[in-house]
């Protein structure tokens, strides 16, 4: 199909800079900066106060200096630069999405600066970077990706036309991980190319959404109206469903073989959600959930690691010092936090020299935040994810065509569903699956993949050039001219 994405006149004025102020975004970003500065001040003061008290000395004055003022300053100026670029680009794109993600990223940065810095270290070109600095580095890259996509993506043809190519590339990437990847915590998720290493399943979620949006928008009417008759039963149109189910099945099976259950759950949930959004048939969701239950039972009996996760979820206190250790400690952390939390920098006491939750920076950031910010803080963070989802669905609702609508809805849902899967896992609502908390968890691949999502959403939200103002007769003319025409 040779569909031109936008029938917009392309003239020489394409590259002329026409700035357009974004007042809402600026206000929200100022609030973000204020919140982050207050948070950093609170963190620094609490940490120094506790260190002094623990050393047995008397506190003479509170020092509200942030623990890493340079890092915070760099992050805030990067936000300002991205805002400036968006203003210069002059596109009428969404103004809420970027501040919301900026606040989530900032909270993540505060958390990483607060955790023991030796948790992750990496050396770049002879420079030793600690946890907080690494997170800042990845955040800056993520902001660059957001700005780049929001500025340059104007047509969606490159996504729409090559959807099978994208799908093949994604599967290939996953297969390459399976063959050449290295094992971390019993799961083979990491692919290393030279000094760079990443988790391709994070990128695959974006690719999967692009493929599903492309396929569903082309076959939407077929899927929602046609049906396969099997005796007295009316089934969904199987021939049209087959390529999509095959694609998802391949992705799922590879992910299950790699023991990456979180990604498998995420892919399946997004697949069902998009199928429902595209067709509006509840039968797909009911059938999908039935399949999911059946699959879960089969997986539970087939795989030892699934069994272990589920048993640990049902009763973590059966082995509180072994398998259930992290789950139990996370629950204690939430309990210590209570309603208002113990304050940034006051939580997470080490137990005999080691962290109670070893994976606190990747899988359990919500437990640390729940302890230090309490229920109130957790609700605010979950509210921020809701804002991201709402913006995505709003962009989808006002999109020009089905592909853009499905793409926007899918991108927003993939972030939202991921946040809620890991939040539910942390809170022991569902078995824990090792995926990251978007924008907050430590990790380059996660931050970059979610930055791609936000950048694409910003590009998709472009409402096009402003319609010309209605000319008002009589105004702006010279009086004698008006008199003469009368």
């Amino acid at each position, binding site marked *: *199909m040779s*569909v*031109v994405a936008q*029938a917009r*006149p392309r003239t020489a004025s394409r590259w002329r800079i026409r700035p357009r102020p974004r007042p*809402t975004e600026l*206000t*929200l970003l100022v*609030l*973000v900066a*204020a*919140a982050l500065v*207050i*948070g950093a*001040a*609170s963190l620094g*003061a*609490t940490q120094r*106060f506790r260190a002094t008290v623990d050393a047995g000395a*008397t*506190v003479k004055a*509170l020092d*509200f200096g942030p623990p890493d003022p340079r890092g915070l300053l760099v992050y805030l100026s990067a936000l300002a630069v991205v805002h400036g670029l968006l203003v210069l680009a002059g596109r009428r794109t969404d*103004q*809420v999405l970027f*501040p*919301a993600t900026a*606040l989530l990223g900032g909270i993540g940065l505060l958390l990483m600066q607060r955790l023991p810095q030796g948790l992750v270290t990496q050396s770049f070109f002879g420079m030793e970077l600690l946890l907080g600095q690494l997170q800042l580095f990845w955040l800056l890259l993520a902001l660059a990706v957001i700005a780049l996509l929001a500025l340059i993506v104007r047509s969606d043809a490159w996504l729409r036309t090559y959807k099978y190519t994208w799908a093949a590339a994604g599967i290939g990437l996953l297969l390459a991980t399976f063959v050449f990847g290295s094992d971390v915590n019993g799961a083979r998720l990491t692919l290393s190319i030279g000094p760079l290493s990443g988790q391709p399943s994070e990128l695959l979620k974006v690719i999967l959404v692009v493929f599903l949006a492309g396929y569903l*928008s082309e076959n*939407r*009417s077929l899927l929602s*109206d046609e049906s396969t008759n099997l005796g007295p039963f009316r089934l969904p149109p199987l021939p049209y469903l087959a390529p999509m189910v095959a694609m998802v099945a391949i992705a799922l099976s590879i992910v299950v073989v790699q023991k990456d259950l979180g990604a498998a759950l995420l892919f399946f949930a997004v697949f069902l959600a998009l199928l429902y959004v595209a067709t509006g048939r509840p039968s797909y969701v009911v059938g999908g959930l039935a399949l999911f239950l059946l699959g879960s039972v089969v997986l539970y009996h087939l795989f030892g690691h699934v069994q272990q996760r589920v048993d640990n979820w049902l009763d973590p206190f059966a082995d509180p010092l072994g398998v259930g250790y992290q789950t139990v400690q996370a629950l204690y952390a939430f309990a210590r936090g209570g309603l*208002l*939390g113990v*304050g*940034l920098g006051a939580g997470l006491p080490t137990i005999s020299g080691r962290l109670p939750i070893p994976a606190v920076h990747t899988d359990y950031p919500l437990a640390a935040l729940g302890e230090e*910010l*309490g229920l*109130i*803080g957790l609700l*605010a*963070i979950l*509210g*921020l994810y809701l*804002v991201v989802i*709402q913006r995505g669905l*709003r962009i989808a*609702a*006002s*999109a*020009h*065509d*089905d*592909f853009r*609508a499905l793409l926007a809805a899918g991108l927003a849902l993939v972030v939202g569903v991921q946040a809620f899967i890991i939040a539910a896992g942390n809170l022991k609502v569902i078995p824990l699956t090792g995926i990251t908390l978007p924008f907050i968890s430590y990790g380059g691949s996660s931050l970059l993949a979610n930055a791609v999502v936000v950048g694409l959403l910003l590009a998709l939200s472009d*409402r*096009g050039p402003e*319609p010309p103002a209605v000319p008002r007769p009589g105004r702006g003319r010279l009086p004698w001219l008006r008199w003469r025409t009368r």
Partner: protein
Amino acid sequence: MDGFVLTLWLVRLLFLLALYAFLFMVVRVLLRDLRAASRGPAELGRLVVLAAPGGEPPAGTTFPLDALTTLGRDVNNAIVIDDPFASADHAVLTFRGRAWYVEDLESTNGTFVNGVPVERVAPLGFGDELQVGEVRFRLDRGRA
């Protein structure tokens, strides 16, 4: 000493307050946005001309659509298609409930949706391609 603890406690609450101040502002913006959206789009959809071999209507032209829009060669149609392969009363687009449908008015050369001939009535999704005679259109959502 207790004064310090109290100050720390206040700063802590201030941080939580700042988070909610942000959320409050966002919710205000979202409410304004939703109110603007609930006034409804000015038009139900628009038809964009992708290609017209005869040059009339020229490619790139957009037609805002009413709930019932007729297409054909006859000058009494809402969208006049000056094409030798179009019938006088060729097809009609109707907006029923929440979706667009195209109805072929027994035209000589047929009406096509994404290259598939329409038998009486067919649903038409946003982004779909509609062909009448040799003129190809695309259905887009209306501008808000």
